[in-house]
């Protein structure tokens, strides 16, 4: 049973990882074609999420663990679609230039983290330790605040600032979900 579920989850995580990286590409380089392709693959993965995980009255501990894991994967998909909407926006080139380095570092950490989850799901040992991405997201946020020293009042008038603040907010949510997925690995 566990192997069967892993077989479904692994391609889903692979698809989400590639979709996430293509969204970052779309945001920084306006590279749309790859994002459209990765989106289609992610959509198929999103639709393949098994229906059985929805019943809420599951009492068997392993079932609860699996359900939690799949609910988080479901949320991960929603966040990626939502980030795709924000990445469409043409941000100021100076802002993109300033945040591109910390953003690429963070996206690389996300990639490593998802790869680590896939390794564990493949029942293999991790070859190296994976960080919790806290430092890289903090650096990205700090850099954004340096470029756009925003307050709630300023956000009221700047569409660029609101959209980018929302994008960073979603990156933080994505990180949080990935940490929860890693925690839940023991229970699936």
């Amino acid at each position, binding site marked *: 049973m566990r192997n069967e579920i892993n077989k479904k989850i692994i391609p889903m995580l692979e698809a989400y990882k590639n979709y996430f990286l293509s969204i970052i590409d779309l945001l920084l380089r306006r590279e749309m074609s790859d994002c*459209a392709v990765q*989106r289609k693959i992610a*959509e198929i993965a*999103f*639709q393949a*999420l098994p*229906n059985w995980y*929805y019943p*809420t009255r599951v009492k068997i501990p392993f079932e609860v663990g699996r359900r939690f894991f799949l*609910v988080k994967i*479901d*949320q991960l998909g*929603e*966040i990626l*679609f*939502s980030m*795709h*909407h*924000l990445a*469409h926006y043409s941000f100021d080139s100076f802002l993109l230039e300033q945040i591109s380095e910390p953003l690429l570092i963070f996206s690389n950490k996300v990639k490593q983290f998802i790869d680590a989850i896939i390794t564990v799901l493949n029942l293999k040992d991790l070859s190296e330790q994976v960080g919790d991405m806290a430092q890289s997201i903090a650096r990205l946020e700090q850099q954004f605040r340096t470029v756009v020293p925003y307050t*709630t009042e300023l*956000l*009221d008038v700047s*569409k660029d600032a*609101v*959209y980018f*603040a*929302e994008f960073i*907010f*979603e990156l933080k*949510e994505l990180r949080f979900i990935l940490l929860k997925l890693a925690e839940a690995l023991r229970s699936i």
Partner: protein
Amino acid sequence: MLNNYFKKMVYRRALREIAKLQQLLCSSYFVQENNDKQVHQQRIRVLSTIRKNKCHVDELNHIADIIFSLNQLRHRIKDFSIFEVCSRELNDIASTSVAFIQDAVKFSAIFSEKIHQFETLYHNTLRVVAPDPLVFLFFIQDLYALHEKVNQLRP
């Protein structure tokens, strides 16, 4: 001509399915019962209906993405009592957005008016009482994006 008619039908069906999804998602602001299964099934219906379209696929996908983005509000608000503060305005947003997605020509002005009302409430109340007012600002920005994108698809 017949081809165009069928294209239009599929495209309208996609908008109808998106509107149904928006309705389901909005209902979860007020009732704390779990409708995850229905939401998941409706999301699948939306994505597969969009894929059946021969035109406007990117635009329809973008509208669906905005709906997903709007839905983040319910994950971001941990204290449901905050929804009571804005229940009337949120209800108005829910009903007019669903109507607007299905008939942009007829409901554009009213939806826009309801967004402005919600924004006023944000400035007067939510910015002060909400634990994290930023999430409402994101919500308002996404409502404007929805208004703009659906209007761009107007025949």
